[in-house]
């Protein structure tokens, strides 16, 4: 890097900076010509630059405020969704603020053309200077680890200065043709102020870099040169504005005091613009960081309450394989619901905000019943549910009967797995509870089984449904339960009855 650094340092001519690319102060955005005044004091401020460094942390600002293209898509850092480099100001190989280079990278044209365009625009009532200044303010610097464009060769640097010189020459010609006399008095001081602002803003870029470097290396205190440039910039701005005021204003006028105040405020605004911009950006960063942090904390809290607790329990009961299995199953089900369920994490926050409404659906109720049986009897119960609807009393009865059927299978079938399939179709809700267990002959059942079957069947019939038992010894059992579903108005989850449940926030 030392070679490049030297190139940067020696290559910068404050004169060229001022003439070609100095941002105009917002004081006079409608001035007919760009500030082109000579700047005898400038070389003193163009001295040593804080060394560029690659140890800065990543620029955290992903959003680029750009009048050309809103490039805020979250793709590869430094590039838009289309693979175009984002509009950032060049960090290295710049002549003044890195604006022209950044635009050239963004538009993928030669930086020469961008500079020519700026100079030509500058001749149009100073529009180019104004544009350059605004871009300098609003376009963030490139991230330190962004891929560097091709190095600025001495040739390129000479080109930039040449373009600036041509622009300056044209200005002088224009001035010589007679337009300059009346405007020179105005432009001289304002140009001076603009140069001052340029140095302050440039210093702000360097200060930001220095701040990064300090936080990285632990060194405190800005360099002396940067203080000098800062103070010099302030003096130029204030001085330029003062000269402008003295030259232009008739101080016998009543409003002169008011004008002085306004000019002072303008001067302060110009000097502090970089810090305002930075403040706004830092606030945005911090807000994003807080949101991420909150999200992370939520996930951590959930994992702690569920998975870590369960793992601790499993360790303590490692000898009891049945209990370990039960814990693992129960935890898996909970985590699944959290991740993929209707109110789950993956469903987005809108759904998670209304857990009460979700509790009311048929699918959720049946899944809950299956989970209960799974936990209580330590059997794997896997429900597959097609379609869903809001609950009513008939469906409540269906879920209760299904639960009985699952309990039956868990108690008597002597298998580890019970299949549950439910569907809502053509106005009928059906539940199939199936096991591949020992089975039985429905015609010859024990008194206890008979009672349960009656309870299931009786319950279904009271609600206009049916219960069918298919079983034979050795071939497992399937119980089919159906009830009619009210047509369309029940197709959506009904509004929550007890609204206080909806107000509970975690």
């Amino acid at each position, binding site marked *: 890097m030392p070679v490049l650094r030297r190139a940067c340092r020696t290559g910068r001519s404050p004169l060229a900076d001022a003439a070609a690319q100095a941002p105009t102060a917002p004081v006079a955005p409608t001035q007919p010509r760009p500030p082109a005044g000579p700047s005898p004091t400038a070389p003193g401020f163009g001295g040593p630059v804080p060394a560029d460094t690659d140890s800065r942390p990543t620029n955290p600002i992903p959003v680029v405020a750009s009048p050309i293209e809103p490039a805020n898509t979250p793709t590869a850092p430094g590039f838009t969704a289309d693979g175009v480099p984002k509009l950032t100001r060049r960090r290295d190989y710049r002549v003044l603020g890195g604006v022209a280079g950044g635009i050239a990278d963004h538009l993928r044209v030669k930086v020469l053309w961008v500079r020519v365009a700026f100079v030509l625009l500058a001749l149009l009532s100073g529009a180019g200077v104004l544009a350059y200044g605004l871009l300098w303010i609003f376009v963030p610097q490139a991230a330190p680890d962004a891929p560097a464009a091709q190095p600025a060769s001495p040739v390129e640097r000479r080109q930039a200065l040449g373009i600036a010189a041509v622009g300056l020459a044209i200005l002088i010609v224009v001035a010589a043709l007679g337009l300059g006399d009346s405007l020179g008095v105005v432009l001289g001081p304002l140009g001076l102020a603009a140069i001052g602002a340029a140095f302050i803003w440039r210093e702000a870029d360097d200060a930001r870099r220095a701040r990064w470097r300090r936080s990285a290396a632990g060194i405190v205190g800005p360099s002396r040169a940067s203080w000098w440039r800062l103070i010099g910039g302030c003096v130029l701005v204030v001085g330029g504005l003062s000269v402008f005021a003295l030259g232009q204003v008739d101080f016998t006028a009543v409003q002169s005091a008011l004008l002085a105040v306004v000019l002072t405020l303008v001067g302060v605004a110009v000097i502090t613009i970089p810090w305002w911009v930075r403040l706004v950006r830092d606030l945005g960063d911090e807000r994003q960081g807080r949101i991420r942090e909150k999200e992370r904390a939520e996930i951590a809290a959930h994992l702690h309450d569920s998975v870590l607790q369960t793992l601790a329990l499993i360790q303590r009961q490692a000898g009891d394989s049945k209990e370990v299995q039960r814990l693992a199953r129960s935890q898996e089900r909970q985590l699944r619901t959290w991740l*993929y369920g*209707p109110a789950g994490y993956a469903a987005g926050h809108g759904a998670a905000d209304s857990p009460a409404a979700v509790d009311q659906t048929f699918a959720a109720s049946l899944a809950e019943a299956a989970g209960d049986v799974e936990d209580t009897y330590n059997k794997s119960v896997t429900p597959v549910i097609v379609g869903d609807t809001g609950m009513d009393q008939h469906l409540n009865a269906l879920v209760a009967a299904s639960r009985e059927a699952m309990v039956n299978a868990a108690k008597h079938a002597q298998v580890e797995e019970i299949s549950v399939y439910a569907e809502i179709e053509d106005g009928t809700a059906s539940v199939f509870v199936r096991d591949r267990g020992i089975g039985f002959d429905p015609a010859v059942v024990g008194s206890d089984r008979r009672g349960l079957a009656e309870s299931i069947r009786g319950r279904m019939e009271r609600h206009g449904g049916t219960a069918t038992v298919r079983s034979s010894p050795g071939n497992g059992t399937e119980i089919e339960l159906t009830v009619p579903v009210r047509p369309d108005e029940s*197709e959506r989850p009904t509004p929550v009855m007890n609204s206080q449940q909806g107000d509970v926030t975690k």
Partner: protein
Amino acid sequence: MSHPVTVFVVDDHALFRTGVKAELAGLDDDRIAVVGEAGSVGEAVVRITSDQPDVVLLDVHMPDGGGRAVLDQIHAKLPDVVFLALSVSDAAEDVIAVIRAGARGYVTKTISGRELADAIVRVSAGDAVFSPRLAGFVLDAFSDRGGPAPVTDPELDLLSPREREVLKLLARGYAYKEIAAQLFISIKTVETHVSSVLRKTQKSNRYELSRWASDRRLV
């Protein structure tokens, strides 16, 4: 069968790969032989291309695009390699996406070793393997709930009544043999119906999957 079905395991969890290999080896089943494994999408693409196994057990959720990315890069090039999705994911859109990308079946990771071995042999023979959960997802996808989806090609966009019946029995946990007995058809016919459902799931453009997946929560 003259030679065992060669199986390749793709999963980003080394522990799980080891578990699957151990379980399949422990069955002492000479129908299948695990020949390789990969822990990332890139590794999987390279090694499957060179090894050309018969069946790939594919994890749905992995960094860098998951099983979908592997299928997208390999399936067109190597149509003879059969993919069977094996995942803990319960998200319907993930599962359907992998099926549409070319996987010939989906089973959950809680499947027993014996069932997994059977599933591997079946997909390698050209069958589709529908776990009850996948059958439920597909039934949901072809239902008319969530607004009338346009039927542009009845051949692809609608399930026949028989296919629907077969799918429902699959969702209820029936084996092919039991489905055949229940519907009084041959096992071969059941296989044909299931393959047809798989083809429709892969080719039909009737529904937009993301929209369907979100509607499913509301209907």
